[in-house]
């Protein structure tokens, strides 16, 4: 792109074209920004034994006076509370740790799968892509329950290990971090494999030929050419796995023990057990802020990729 292209005036767009462009914005405002602002407002409120269980509430009948009183009633107390109790910090740290370690494992497992997929004939590739997303055809919850069954004390896994004489005593799987890792890696694998596959599949084969031509053996070309050029896929896959994994609730709740208190469970406890909506909201807002950082990095990377193309 030359500068001449960039500075050129925006092309004329019809009303319909403008509408189509705005649909994603409308979607984000309705389903992300507005709910987030509501949660943010609740996080600045105080608990109350009422319906809804916090104060102040938005009182339209009181007019301007009501709005002024609403803003006067907001405070950062809940955030101060989060800082004062190490439970929350530990919970965040645990979530990030589990999500980060899972992401690394997903990369180690997903990259070879995606790479192998691109090496198969075209017709087979289509079948493989379908098989990667095939697990989605069963409910996520059912698949996690299946893992509970597999991992339980006298479940298929332990029976197999005993039959193969790999262990003397059946190991405990459920309610451990290992079970959480198994659950996360299993559930998120398609989100890692698909972006990696999409990137690797676009890789120009002639680049590897050029590397070979210049004296670079195949294994070395992988490190010098394939891996650096698949970085956008690695970043996309890592973020697609890391971000939801941090806030994961179902997997640690069903497979993990009480000691693996990830942030999703903390929020759940605050909301439903303690009925402390403002604290729960504050925990959620901090989580969103934590996750915005990697999203911004991802955005930056994507824009660089777009510029290169």
């Amino acid at each position, binding site marked *: 792109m030359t500068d001449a292209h960039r500075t050129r005036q925006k092309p004329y767009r019809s009303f319909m074209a403008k509408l189509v462009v705005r649909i994603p914005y409308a979607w984000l405002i309705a389903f992300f920004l507005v709910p987030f602002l509501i949660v943010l407002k609740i996080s600045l409120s105080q608990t109350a034994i009422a319906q809804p269980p916090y104060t102040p509430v938005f009182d339209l009948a009181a007019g301007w006076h009501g709005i002024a009183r609403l803003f006067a009633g907001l405070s950062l107390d809940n955030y101060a509370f989060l800082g004062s109790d190490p439970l929350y910090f530990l919970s965040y740290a645990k979530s990030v740790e589990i999500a980060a370690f899972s992401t690394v494992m997903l990369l180690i497992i997903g990259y070879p799968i995606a790479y192998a997929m691109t090496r198969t004939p075209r017709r087979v590739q289509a079948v493989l892509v379908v098989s990667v997303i095939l697990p989605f055809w069963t409910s996520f919850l059912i698949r996690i329950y299946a893992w509970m069954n597999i991992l339980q004390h006298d479940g298929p896994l332990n029976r197999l290990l005993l039959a193969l004489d790999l262990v003397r005593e059946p190991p405990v799987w459920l309610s451990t971090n290992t079970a959480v890792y198994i659950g996360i890696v299993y559930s998120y694998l398609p989100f890692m494999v698909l972006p990696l596959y999409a990137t690797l599949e676009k890789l120009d084969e002639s680049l590897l030929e050029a590397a070979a031509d210049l004296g670079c053996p195949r294994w070395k070309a992988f490190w010098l050419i394939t891996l650096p050029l698949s970085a956008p896929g690695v970043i996309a896959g890592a973020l697609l796995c890391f971000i939801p994994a941090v806030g994961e609730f179902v997997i640690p709740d069903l497979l993990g023990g009480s000691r693996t208190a990830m942030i999703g469970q903390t929020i759940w406890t605050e909301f439903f057990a303690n009925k402390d909506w403002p604290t729960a909201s504050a925990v959620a807002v901090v989580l969103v802020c934590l996750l915005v950082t990697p999203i911004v990095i991802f955005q930056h990377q994507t824009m660089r990729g777009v*510029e290169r193309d």
Partner: protein
Amino acid sequence: MPAVESRTGFAKRDFAPWADRALAPLLRIEGVTKRFGAYTAVDHLSLDIYQGEFFALLGPSGCGKTTLLRLIAGFERAGAGRVVLDGVDLAPVPPYRRPVNMMFQSYALFPHLTVEGNVAFGLKQEGLPKAQIAERVAEMLTLVRLEKFGARKPHELSGGQRQRVALARSLVKRPRVLLLDEPMAALDKKLRGETQFELMDLQRRLGLTFVIVTHDQSEAMTVADRIAVMDRGRLMQVAPPAEIYEQPNSRWVADFIGSVNLLEGRAGRDGMSVEGTALGRLHVAAKIAAEPGATVWVAVRPEKLRMTPTPGSPDRQSALENDVAATLVDIAYLGDLSIYRLRTDAGVPLQATRANTAPLAERGTGANDKVWLSFPRDAAIVLTR
């Protein structure tokens, strides 16, 4: 050595190693066959290429020229035959150990490396010391006039600059043979013309052997010492450009290179004429290499056809010339020259070209004009196949 002389007669410069029987070729292709399923891309092909030659593989798309190049580079394995470089059979040598380098049609520049990184890539694989790599990269970038662009990434360059990076990268290892796969296909016409001359200049200065694949015959004729014309995996003719044009060995080559008027007839009893063509009996300059009565073809290049308003040729009576009356059908004006489409009184279509040397106003010919076409007997090429 008269045999040598006759074979070097068409050579471009004082350089015709292929005519020297004592000289061993640098690159020997011996009976190489390559099949893709039922499709034969290269069909039992043999070819010798000599040190210092600029050699062109020319042919229509799908003729197997790129496959042949990839066989030399090692990206394809021959089903039969051998590729021998410097007397060494390359079959067991993987691409990354072959002393040849390739410039790819797509350039295949590494998008994540800078221009310097791209050019240095091959040298780094050799494990040369850093200072030496830097020196050779700088030298090569100067050679292709990109010394100011070393820190740029490929996507920050123009098409012509990218092409020169690809060239520098493939030359920096000083390959025994440089393989160029349609190196100028992505350039616009004007730049292509300049680049062809730069490439020739570079090849002579470095004294390297270049093998270029192209489907553009003017490109092949411009750059190459010898051209191998290929069709359907086989060599049709291997000769210097002028010989390919002036003495094609078959109707296929005559028709593929440039334009030609082809007339079928029978070899005459005297061996110096062709009878029964659409233009009647035609006289030729050289003895016909066919039995009298055998089917032969007379090829006449359009620019060798002379157009005159009257049959006023002085040589006519002595039968040194061939001539025929014709009607002008169409003129295609191309600026430097014009193409005239003609039809003889017997309805045979012919084509003539003439350089537009005279001012436009003085060229008083137009459609439906009657003209007289003639050509000297040495302009008639007799083809036996």
